[in-house]
């Protein structure tokens, strides 16, 4: 890393440190989520290295929860990939915005940093830029504690000496669903959200009962999104 200057791309060690310190609380909050994911992976019968690899390579609570919900003895890889693309397509918008901020940072620097891109690190970096401190080092620095929390939490959760039984086992099977539903309040836009959400749920229920659960999210969510777009939601 280099110190900042007028002709140099904005990627500095001091911004990395600032971002890292600012995001330290995420070691705990992402860690708790990671522990839950690790417990869920163990409940599914995945070994330790597979569980940690999921969080290391995919590094997305939403995508991991959705693919976990699709899991069978023979993982439906095509459905999992489509589900991951659908749930994480929002990153395309975040990435396009980052290009406006960091278009002058070399791609060999930005592309590895983007592997750790998270909603929270994006928000923090954009807020930092709005305060006049545009720096890709901050994006990397804020992303590292989040990744440590998530991946470390998954390892810890898988290694915990707990074996849920009875009602706790039922609740453990609910965990992948929990990861997704906790995001709903962030998507709620008032009563206007109701019609497309009702369409999404209704189509998903029909599809789950006929074609199976693998395609319920995509077809149901697609129908609701279409309703939102057709009536002119912005």
């Amino acid at each position: 890393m280099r110190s900042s200057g007028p002709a140099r791309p904005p990627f500095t060690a001091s911004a990395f440190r600032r971002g890292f310190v600012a995001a330290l609380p995420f070691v705990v909050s992402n860690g708790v989520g990671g522990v839950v994911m690790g417990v869920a992976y163990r409940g599914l019968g995945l070994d330790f290295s597979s569980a940690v690899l999921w969080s290391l390579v995919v590094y997305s609570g939403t995508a991991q929860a959705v693919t976990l919900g699709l899991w069978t003895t023979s993982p439906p890889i095509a459905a999992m990939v489509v589900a991951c693309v659908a749930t994480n397509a929002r990153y395309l918008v975040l990435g396009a915005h980052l290009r406006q901020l960091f278009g002058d940072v070399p791609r060999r620097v930005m592309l590895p940093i983007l592997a750790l891109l998270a909603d929270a690190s994006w928000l923090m970096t954009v807020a930092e830029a709005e305060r006049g401190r545009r720096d890709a080092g901050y994006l990397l620095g804020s992303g590292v504690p989040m990744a440590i929390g998530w991946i470390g939490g998954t390892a810890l959760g898988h290694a915990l000496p707990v074996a849920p039984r009875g009602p706790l086992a039922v609740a453990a099977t609910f965990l992948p669903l929990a990861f997704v539903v906790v995001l709903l309040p962030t998507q709620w836009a008032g009563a206007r959200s109701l019609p497309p959400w009702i369409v999404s749920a209704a189509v998903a229920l029909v599809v789950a009962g006929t074609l199976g659960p693998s395609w319920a999210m995509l077809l149901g969510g697609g129908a609701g999104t279409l309703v939102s777009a057709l009536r002119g939601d912005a």
Partner: protein
Amino acid sequence: MPDSRVLAAIVAVGLASYAMRAGGFLAAGAIPPRGLLERLLRLAPGNLFVAFAAAGILEGGWPSLVGCLGAVATMAATDREWAALGAGFAAAALASAVL
């Protein structure tokens, strides 16, 4: 060591996940601000999450429904994901024991 099917799933989903993260940066010019594609990308997540929840509740029954309500209510009240996950887990366990 993961077996080959699990490894293939991890690699495939991992590539898709990274493609979403890097794709927007690389193809920024192809996503015009306030265009239809940009709108669809922003409108899709909530609808996808609702559809996933509906199918999950259908499969999981009452404990899943009660767990979802507990998780969503806690998230709305606290804005803390870890608290919502804990509350949802507890609500699902309680519903499983009682219902």
